[in-house]
């Protein structure tokens, strides 16, 4: 939309919302949230950017095609489950490990990558929907 106020504010709001979406994603295991909601928030963020600056702006900022991101998300989630194969446990078994980083113990788990996969699928798919709807026949 051609309004200066919105166009100026939109990118900041977008990055703020993306930040929030990452927060929601990462804390999902202990509090409400998780990949799906995070993904929806991120998609909303891109939708805001799209409404303000047009479809091309979003495409440029996402770099990859949203559906490719979505595909990657599914792949990631599936591979997170497949890692169990190496450890000779059934599909999608949660595997955990901790890494110390700057004195902080950070937990890595297949479950987390699974959730990130969910996030990416949702971001990609919903953004793709929003973009294709925004896009005009003649645009």
């Amino acid at each position: 939309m051609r309004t200066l106020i919105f166009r100026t504010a939109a990118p900041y709001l977008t990055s703020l919302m993306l930040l929030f979406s990452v927060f929601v994603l990462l804390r999902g295991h202990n509090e409400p949230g998780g990949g799906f909601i995070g993904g929806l928030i991120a998609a909303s963020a891109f939708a805001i950017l799209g409404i303000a600056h047009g479809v091309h702006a979003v495409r440029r900022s996402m770099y990859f095609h949203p559906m490719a991101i979505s595909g990657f998300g599914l792949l990631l989630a599936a591979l997170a489950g497949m890692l169990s194969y190496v450890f000779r446990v059934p599909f999608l078994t949660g595997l955990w490990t901790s890494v110390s980083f700057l004195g902080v113990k950070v937990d890595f788990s297949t479950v987390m990558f699974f959730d990130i996969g969910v996030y990416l699928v949702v971001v990609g798919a919903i953004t793709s929907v929003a973009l294709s709807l925004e896009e005009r026949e003649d645009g």
Partner: protein
Amino acid sequence: MTGEVADMAGAMITTPATAADWLVIAPVIIPLIFGALLLMFRHEMRWHGIAALVGLAALMGAEVALFARVLEHGPVSMTMGSWLPPFGISFTVDLLGATFALTSGSIAFVCAVFTLRDIGVTGRRYGFYPFMMLMMAGVSGAFLTGDIFNLYVWFEVFVISSFGLLILGSEKAQIDGASKYAILNLVATTLFLIATAYLYGIFGTLNMADIVRKADGVRGGAPLMTLATLYLLAFGMKAAAFPVNFWLPASYHTPRIVVAALFGGLLTKIGIYALLRTLVMLFPVERAALADLIGWVAVATMILGVLGALAQSDTRRIFGFLVTSGVGVMLAGLSLGTETGISGAIFYAIHSMLIMTALYLLAGMMKERGGSFSLHELSGLYRNSPFLAAIALVLAAAVAGLPPASGLWPKVMLVKAAMDASAWWLAGAILLSGFLTTITLGRVFLLAFWRDHAGGHETRGTALPLLGYAALVALTVPIVVLGLFPEPVIRIANMAAAGLLHSSGYVGAVFAAGGGS
């Protein structure tokens, strides 16, 4: 972090999962991963066909191995996430699931061969192969899962993928057909979900083996009759049983022919599979009480289906109605509920998967050689394409239940089972529907192949569509082989039916892993 509190052995499976165990989930993972990759490399269109073939070949390989394993060891099970059943989601594969999965995988492979020439740039760019892959993931998941809510999820996966396949091309009729298909299918799957919600409310569990164990305990107090009827409706709708079969004839003639072939082969059969799984395995007592209702539904479905076929001019619509009619035949087996009846239904389902796919591919080839789908316009194919005519004849015989093709034996089994149960009307309807099918297809052969109208379509070019023929032959050969040597399949169907009726093997496979609770 809190190891001393955790009761690992009481919560998780501790025995290691071997590669052979992974076979039960492989038919889902393989197409899923291939689908994701194909989507990521959506623009590398030259490789799509090959990649899809490789993926489906791998899928088929896994299913063959799985089938062999089930045949050898009886039902096998794996519970995801290492959780003890019924807490995690179990994939439990008995002979029924393995057989259906294998057949569907093979059909998908054949269809993929057909697509190599049929799917153009636009179709590839907008995800034909990812749709197909994900549909196969959904279909395999539906056949293999041992958890009823998970079954719902796989249903949705293949349904949404089928939407995608259905609309690729965006023709007017496609969009219209897809609208009806999508809305009615959504209602159907939602009914499934509703029924599952009630089921959960009653049993407190979703694992089908667990439900089997608990069913006798709750019978009497819980509204199981109503629940069973609701499942009958939901899956009946998926299977396209009268009076909720509208979506099928409204849509199957609209997409690309190979998509219709895939649908004709797979979709209704999943409904049948789910009906067998729920009504026979989970609610046998309720199924028996509903047997007459199912029987009448079966009769109406098969007769109205074939009458619908008689009334059509478009070959694809004819075949669509014939799919419905076949569903009625399988429902007859469900209504009977005896081992022979169910075994007949299973055999018929296998036959139906092959034959319906083949019929649509045939319609595609007829269009290619004869320039139209309409009986008003088709002509002279017998002269132009004698080989196609030969295949058409075999396929027609197969649908009508005539020798030397595969349709005869399941029909014999079902008629025998119906007569054994003194269900004369059911036997009569099965035979009558076969007869009406003969008329329908006899007319098709007459009009499209034998007739030579003046000014009929002249086949352009002489290049034979080799891939198309290859796909057709790949389906026709097993149809004939099943017609000539049905014994192995009958035996498998019998074993599958027995496994369904006496589900202790199934339950045992699930809870063997760790005793369960």
